């Protein structure tokens, strides 16, 4: 194993993150939540899907982003390009598309007065047009939202003038993940978990493996443990706002009988792609998108804030396409075990939020194996308070 078991290892390369306790106020303050809305979610690139969600020209999906108070229509145009628009008719603002997803043969038609748009957003028809005054269809197309694709993942940016391109936003990570066979994976499961918890409480709970030997009956010893039986990660890396932490597979981990069968019948399920750093890589793409690579499987999370203490955790599990029944069995085993693991995780989120709401805690205490969380909260605070630091901005927010 390559994992280093030493204590206080990660801070050495990340002194700028500091070692003090981290304030909990962004998880409870409605004022700070409003700052997150304006200074994070309305400004940075947000993942809203994958290319496969829009398989052919005319395919569309609608994403309602409560945090941005915006309904987004994503559509693959006749020219195959993926575009994003406000899901709003330009006439008097009716919601244009009500279905969550579908296929548009030629026109999106507003139910209110039949105004119609093509799949590239152009306004093609105004009912009773000649009864309007000087109306110009050519400038009344659907209002566009910046959209771009990175490694098959569709991102949008709600700023009218994004400060960075998506490529700039993802810089560094491109090289790391490039070559991962996303196109050979297919969506197997998607869950939607609505929780009474701040979005960061949910994300933080996933953004470390310190808790693994304690909380998880499902995977008590899958990651390397030091002599005192505490977990250690293999690597922690920062890419601007984003991070990845990686974990090796503990070769001595206890295998159950059915797990052994699953591995025997589906050896490629355990294969680690060369683009991966460890056996398990957890990327946090700021602010609310996570990619988890776990040997032959990957998962994504989109953790959507609804209110300061209410969020939706969207979990998507991808596994290699297969026609082979024994592989399907092995995949199902892995899928069920992961679902149960996530249900173990979800047991804590609302309890933590309730505690934070009580005011019992003003700061989180974080150790070296939780440096990911330290980085993440620092980024959140940097975005909402600016580089000048917390104190002045907190005072201003109050």
């Amino acid at each position: 194993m390559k994992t280093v078991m030493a204590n206080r290892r990660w801070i050495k390369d990340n002194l700028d993150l500091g070692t003090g306790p981290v304030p909990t106020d962004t998880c409870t303050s409605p004022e700070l939540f409003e700052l997150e809305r304006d200074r994070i979610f309305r400004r940075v690139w947000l993942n809203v899907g994958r290319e496969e969600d829009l398989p052919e020209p005319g395919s569309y999906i609608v994403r309602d982003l409560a945090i941005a108070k915006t309904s987004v229509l994503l559509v693959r145009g006749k020219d195959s390009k993926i575009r994003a628009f406000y899901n709003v008719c330009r006439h008097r603002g009716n919601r244009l598309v009500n279905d969550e997803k579908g296929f548009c043969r030629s026109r999106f038609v507003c139910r209110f007065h039949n105004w119609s748009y093509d799949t590239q957003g152009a306004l093609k028809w105004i009912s009773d047009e000649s009864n309007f005054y000087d109306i110009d269809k050519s400038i009344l197309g659907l209002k566009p939202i910046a959209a771009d694709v990175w490694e098959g993942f569709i991102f949008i940016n709600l700023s009218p003038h994004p400060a960075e391109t998506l490529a700039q936003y993802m810089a560094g990570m491109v090289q790391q993940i490039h070559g991962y066979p996303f196109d050979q994976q297919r969506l197997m499961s998607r869950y939607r978990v609505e929780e009474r918890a701040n979005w960061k409480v949910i994300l933080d709970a996933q953004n470390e493996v310190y808790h693994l030997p304690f909380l998880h009956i499902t995977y008590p010893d899958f990651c390397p443990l030091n002599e005192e039986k505490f977990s250690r990660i293999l690597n922690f890396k920062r890419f601007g706002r984003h991070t990845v932490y990686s974990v090796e597979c503990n070769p001595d981990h206890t295998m159950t009988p059915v797990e052994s069968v699953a591995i025997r019948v589906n050896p490629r399920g355990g294969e680690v792609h060369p683009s991966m750093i460890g056996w398990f890589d957890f990327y946090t793409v700021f602010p609310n998108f996570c990619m988890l690579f776990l040997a032959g499987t990957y998962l994504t999370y989109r953790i959507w804030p609804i209110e300061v203490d209410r969020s939706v955790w969207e979990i998507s599990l991808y596994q290699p396409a297969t026609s082979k029944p024994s592989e399907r069995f092995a995949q199902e085993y892995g899928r069920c075990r992961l679902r149960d693991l996530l249900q173990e995780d979800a047991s804590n989120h609302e309890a933590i939020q309730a505690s934070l709401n009580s005011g019992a805690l003003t700061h989180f205490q974080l150790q070296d194996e939780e440096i990911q969380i330290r980085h993440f909260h620092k980024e959140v605070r940097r975005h909402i308070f600016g580089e000048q630091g917390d104190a002045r901005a907190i005072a201003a927010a109050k």
Partner: protein
Amino acid sequence: MNTLLPKEFSALEGFADWALPTSVERNRKRLGSSMDEITALYNALLPRTEEILAYLDQFSLEEMPQDARRLLRLALSLAEISIAVELFHEPTVTGGCDPSRFVVVHEPNP
């Protein structure tokens, strides 16, 4: 319909009610069953799992006779319940959240 499972596996016929088509139904049946019922299924299937999978691998997931498909669904129930038997020692996720909080938006087929 005289047989539910391929004749090689007729000894498992008593467990055919676990041959459910969707992961949601298999999970629901696990959560609604007693540990005795779950363990009986586990004990009956585990020694034959590799034999079952070798049999199923004669076919592809897309083209499979009905009796083989039922056998596959039974095997997928083993994948589901084995976690209860091997790890939790109870049908539910020990200390886990209410499983109904995980709303299934998309599930595997079969």
